[in-house]
């Protein structure tokens, strides 16, 4: 049950890692201190000493791998060419669009499916979250209890939720099909046929994502002063007008970052699509899961590196576009 050898081993491994990190930081700071303070006598030396550990970490573990991935993406590295790979230029980037990414599925079906997946999820998260937030934003009994129960899917570890839901999508023993049968409907092949499987992914992710939006939007609603609504009432506005003319514009500063983040997160959601898709149907893959499979099931490292960059550029274009359009991030320069 409990293996003390393994415990000691893990402790010593974790401990030495911390010591190594500490040693690197100390050496780095000492060098910076000697160079900047003693030798160059820079005025703001403290700033650079404060920032340097993070910069070093990001350089070594994020920038360097990315640059190196850029290089791999132009080689034919794969399991059979792991050490003796050769440079092939931009061929991989062309291949992503012309060859099947996995066994059969090509890039564009995956791309459109990911867009559909993101759109369905974000729209449902925001609408559902907004409805629940509006309902909760009033004095009433049990408000705290409702709020607490609604948060539950967010608090549940995603991996647990995804695997538990997959079990419940079982044709015979899952509660969804049992309930469908009880109300006289046909049970659905959630795990083995393409469209229901995609719908199952969406259902789970919507269930997981609504609590976050509810809580964020509720926080925003509560910071809107009631005076706006009073003034509008005096002018004879109805609830519908109040919502679109007062609530929505005042919620913009909360909604914009929540929607950007939500879109990027949904686009990059790995766990749900990976776990719900038990039988590895290529019709349920979205871009990130296809990327994982191309790299670790088909072992096409060079190809998947190129694929990864294409996914990243899609996200980058989206974000630049969205940031320009909404003027978010104005605060960065202060």
């Amino acid at each position, binding site marked *: 049950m409990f293996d003390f050898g393994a415990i000691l081993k893990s402790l010593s491994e974790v401990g030495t890692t911390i010591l190594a990190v500490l040693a690197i930081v100390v050496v780095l700071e000492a060098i910076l201190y000697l160079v900047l303070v003693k030798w160059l006598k820079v005025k703001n030396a403290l700033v650079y000493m*404060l920032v340097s550990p993070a910069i070093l970490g990001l350089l070594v573990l994020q920038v360097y791998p990315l640059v190196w991935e850029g290089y791999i993406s132009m080689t034919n590295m794969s399991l059979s060419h792991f050490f003796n790979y050769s440079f092939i230029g931009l061929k991989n980037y062309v291949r992503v669009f012309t060859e099947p990414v996995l066994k059969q599925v090509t890039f564009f079906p995956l791309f459109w499916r990911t867009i559909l997946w993101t759109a369905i999820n974000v729209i449902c998260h925001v609408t559902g979250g907004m409805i629940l937030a509006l309902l909760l934003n009033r004095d009433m009994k049990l408000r705290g209890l409702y709020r607490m129960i609604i948060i539950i899917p967010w608090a549940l570890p995603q991996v647990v939720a995804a695997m538990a839901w997959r079990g419940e999508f079982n044709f015979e023993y899952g509660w969804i099909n049992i309930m469908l049968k009880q109300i006289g409907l046909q049970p659905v092949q959630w795990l083995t046929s393409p469209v229901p499987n995609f719908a199952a992914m969406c259902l789970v992710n919507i269930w997981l994502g609504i609590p976050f939006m509810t809580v964020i939007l509720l926080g925003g609603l509560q910071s809107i002063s009631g005076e706006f609504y009073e003034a509008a009432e005096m002018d004879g506005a109805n609830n519908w007008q109040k919502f679109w003319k007062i609530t929505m514009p005042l919620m913009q500063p909360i909604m914009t970052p929540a929607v950007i983040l939500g879109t990027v997160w949904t686009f990059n959601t790995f766990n749900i699509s990976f776990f719900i898709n038990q039988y590895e149907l290529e019709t349920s893959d979205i871009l990130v899961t296809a990327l994982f499979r191309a790299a670790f099931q088909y072992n096409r490292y060079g190809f998947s590196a190129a694929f990864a960059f294409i996914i990243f550029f899609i996200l980058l274009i989206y974000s630049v576009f969205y940031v320009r359009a909404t003027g978010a991030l104005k605060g960065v320069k202060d």
Partner: protein
Amino acid sequence: MTTRNATLDTSTLEQKQPKRRKTNFFRANRGDSKFKRLIIHLILIGYCIISIYPLLRIFSVSLRPGNRVLSTDLSIIPPDATLENYKKVIDEGLLQWIWNSLAVTITTSIVGVIIAATSAYAFSRYKFKGRTTLLIYLLTTQMIPTAMLMVPIYILAIKLGLIGTYRGLVIAYSVTSVPFSIWILKGYYDTIPTELEEAAIIDGASPLQAFLKIILPLSTPALSITFLFNFSQAWNEFLIARVILGSNEAILTWPLGLNRLMGQYLVQWGQYNAGAIMVSIPVMILFMAMSKYMISGLTLGSVKG
């Protein structure tokens, strides 16, 4: 100490609300008829059931005896409830997996918070060359899918001999959460008035002392939020762990361990659910208790910019 209260107020936004809500249009006893209130309660109760039912199901399946794990029974507490599955999953190695996860998670959270705390302070207080570029870079990294970094990290880990070790996992985790942590902490430091450090420096403290002795203690709430974010991210992480730890049985973290119970061909459904309950309940309690602060941390980091 008054400043401390002032800064804390941002994180307890909701507690201040009842006073203000008196004038709010959405308040119940103005215009809301009894019927409307009933409908609202019904909708909320309905959604609460949707929200909690899958969790109750996990609990219910975990109590089923081994020969009845697969059944079409929908009752929450099965008639022949037993803790057999809990015992089995512990024999299977659940405590070991939890321990492995804890060791990795706590280490990475501490390393991550320390690195982020110091650099966020520099970003908040000083203007220096490359500051804007770096901040924008940090935001951009939020867009990189984890799956994208997997290829180079996997190959580098093979070449450095880090496959199948916690070392590789700790290193990979610590850095992934740093950009987001810097944003949260910078947002919080921005709300602390600079006069505090200026006063300390006039009294003869060095800038570093002012940071360590005044700003850091004042930032305990934000530091604990950041720690929690890092913790929950590493605690629930599956993809990097799967790639770096591989299938080495002795060192699985709990997501990998539970996933093994749910193999494609052999599914230990009862044990999986028992494990899921044991892993989730403590985390969920912690999360619920801290959720208010976590949300304020999120909005501080993203909305304030």
